[in-house]
């Protein structure tokens, strides 16, 4: 079953993923049934390190988990194309209709999540649930736990960096709604993550809190085991390609950080410019009140500057609402990516350490023990998953940035076109008077 070679699974991937949890759940009886169906390799790793014999028979699980994504890039490309025409999609998720809830203890916002799907995993064709930010947060940490070899899309920051921003203001809620929508769409589009059990529960469960509680026992254990692992091995050298990805991500995050600062600075300058324009226009009106013949032209200029101010305000609003959040998302994305890279390093380090240990005892045991082989499998699956996700991410990034930057250019063009129209419209007003004289 699960031990199947990674590359043989592209078409049946999702199903094998579905099949995976059950044998495992059976083997470790203390796990909440259905709740945490796919244990994290971190967990497995920890066990294999701690009590090898107990868990080893199931050691192949991660290979199964990761197999759909480790499929060749061809599949990714195909899916990408599918995404574009939208025909073959079978899962649609929308986040909308934010609502404010005021309780005695706290005030919070919930968002409506509507799911439509033809997948067999969904009993009904359509679901509608309400979730708040911490539910999304829960989902993300569950995904991270259960799919450690995959790149989990980032959530918008919990706290606002800008400081004094009203968390319940319409703009803030709308920006967050868009980001949450994007988050779910990215998961929906992912060939592995979209089949995750927790994701399914998140989209469909009437009472998510009940479900969350079930997982708590496991979570505490998990925390310990993760600690156990991180204290473990140290990686000697990162393979070249992953080192390159790491370097790329560092640079990428750095450049995006700069762009983010520039964009914020531009918006700040534009807002200050707007403040001045708002004063500038009316001065022409004041002046026009003094004049006879010049009154109309001056009033025209005043109105024109007013139109330009409005256009500028639209531009800054658009940039704040559409441009900045996407930049932020990608900055956070590169962080997620880096943490997956780290986990990968950890798996490799473990494998290397084990291999070394075996080498020392080579005379005693001529054959490489099974647990080391499993470990190697796991590393290779991890590598394959990561590479596939990275490629996916690169493609998404390219599309997103093309769209984002073209959008920025468009917004600026529109702004100038509006100003142009305003100024062109007053020329006849000025000239006509001139000639009439």
């Amino acid at each position, binding site marked *: 079953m699960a031990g199947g070679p990674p590359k043989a699974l592209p078409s049946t991937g999702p199903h094998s993923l579905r099949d995976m949890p059950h044998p495992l759940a059976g083997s470790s009886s203390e796990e909440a049934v259905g709740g945490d169906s796919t244990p994290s390799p971190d967990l497995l790793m920890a066990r294999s390190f701690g009590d090898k014999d107990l868990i080893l028979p199931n050691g192949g699980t991660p290979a199964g988990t990761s197999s759909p994504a480790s499929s060749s890039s061809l599949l990714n490309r195909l899916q990408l194309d599918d995404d574009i025409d939208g025909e073959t999609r079978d899962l649609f998720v929308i986040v909308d209709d934010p609502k404010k809830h005021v309780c005695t203890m706290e005030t919070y916002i919930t968002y409506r999540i509507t799911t439509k799907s033809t997948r067999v995993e969904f009993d009904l064709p359509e679901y509608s649930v309400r979730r708040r930010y911490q539910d999304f947060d829960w989902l993300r940490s569950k995904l991270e736990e259960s799919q450690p070899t995959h790149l989990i899309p980032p959530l918008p920051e919990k706290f606002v960096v800008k400081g004094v921003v009203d968390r319940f203001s319409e703009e803030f809620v709308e920006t967050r709604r868009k980001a949450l929508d994007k988050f779910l769409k990215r998961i929906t589009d992912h060939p592995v993550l979209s089949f995750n059990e927790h994701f399914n529960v998140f989209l469909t469960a009437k009472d998510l809190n009940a479900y969350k509680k079930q997982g708590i026992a496991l979570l505490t254990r998990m925390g310990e085991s993760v600690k156990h692992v991180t204290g473990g091995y140290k990686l000697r050298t990162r393979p070249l390609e992953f080192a390159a990805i790491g370097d790329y991500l560092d640079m990428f995050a750095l*450049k995006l950080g700069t762009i983010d600062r520039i964009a914020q600075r531009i918006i700040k300058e534009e807002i200050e410019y707007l403040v001045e324009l708002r004063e500038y226009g009316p001065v022409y009106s004041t002046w026009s009140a003094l004049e006879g013949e010049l009154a109309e032209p001056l009033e025209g*200029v005043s109105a024109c500057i007013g139109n330009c101010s409005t256009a500028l305000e639209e531009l800054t609003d658009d940039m704040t609402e559409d441009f900045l959040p996407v930049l932020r998302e990608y900055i956070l994305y590169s962080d997620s990516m880096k943490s997956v890279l780290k986990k990968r390093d950890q798996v490799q380090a473990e494998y290397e350490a084990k291999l070394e240990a075996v080498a020392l005892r080579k005379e005693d045991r001529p054959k490489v023990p099974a647990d080391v082989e499993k470990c190697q499998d796991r590393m290779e699956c991890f590598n394959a998953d990561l590479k596939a996700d990275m490629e996916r991410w690169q493609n998404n990034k390219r599309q997103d940035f093309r769209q984002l930057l073209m959008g920025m250019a468009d917004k600026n063009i529109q702004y100038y076109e509006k*100003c142009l129209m305003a100024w062109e419209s007053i020329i006849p007003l000025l000239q006509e008077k001139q000639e009439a004289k």
Partner: protein
Amino acid sequence: MEQAPRDPERQLQPAPLEPLGCPDAGLGAAVGKEAAGAGEEDSGVDTMTHNNFWLKKIEISVSEAEKRTGRNAMNMQETYTAYLIETRSVEHTDGQSVLTDSLWRRYSEFELLRNYLLVYYPHIVVPPLPEKRAEFVWHKLSADNMDPDFVERRRIGLENFLLRIASHPILCRDKIFYLFLTQEGNWKETVNETGFQLKADSRLKALNATFRVKNPDKRFTDLKHYSDELQSVISHLLRVRARVADRLYGVYKVHGNYGRVFSEWSAIEKEMGDGLQSAGHHMDVYASSIDDILEDEEHYADQLKEYLFYAEALTVRTFSLKGMTTKLFGQETPEQREARIKVLEEQINEGEQQLKSKNLEGREFVKNAWADIERFKEQKNRDLKEALISYAVMQISMCKKGIQVWTNAKECFSKM
């Protein structure tokens, strides 16, 4: 200055009703003609026929500015800017212009010319000079009066000043003005010989009298009111415009950072690299385009500044008008009553006669002054409309540039 006011009586008259060169040219008629023509170059044509200074149509230009060092009256080393004034006469037959005079003047000499005109033509709205020091500047612009851009703008301003005088129906006939254009040495001395300084002092007295005017002419009160308001609105406008320019400059220049970061980013990207790189280039272009835009806008600001200074000139004008009115009510007479009784009667007679003539003179003054103000108003409306049009055209070209740059950038992005 054959008619140079040697006799003391004349020096007390604030208004030389007969323009120096052309005693019998009807003022109203000249104003009318001039207002219709208005071009800067036809200044000499219709008004100068019997004035040997201006037999031909002439062109005036301030063609060059030069930094110089010299010694001032205190024998101290100083640096100043001199401006080359060229006058050309235009032959009507072939339209060719011939250089007739070219000489250097410095700003202080322009100032002297203007002060002289102010004193001798109290009923005329004398064109203002460009500012001595840059005012209403935005941070990028240098406030240094040796700054080449500032000197260049001042050169244009000074030329404009001379053209305005030359196109004025009365001022263009002034001999001192003519000598200013044609006689390099001794000009200052000639000006001082006119004794305008003395006149200026008596004008000050008249200014002091202003506050005692009981029945000021409503038209002039309104005018005073208008010019005050105009002055305040234009200076407010200029202040805000400078801040607007500052911010606009900021917006554009910050975009320049995109140029750098896109280019750095492009180095680590494969497919996106080229698009980013060239989009970065367009951002650089965008950032640097603001320099020219704001340089052009400065010209608009200068046009507004001229009217700011005109408004100041108007305020002074109304003051002296009031001073004139004061005289109509015979402020001097009571003082004379203090004199000996014997002389008193004579003096009263004299005073009455004086009063009569002043009344007449005053009425004439008001009429002429008003005519000039009317002329000024028309000029103002015309000029400001042109200024507004050119401002709108500037904005349009800025928008077009912006659209162009962003369209280019978009094209690059779309190839990513």
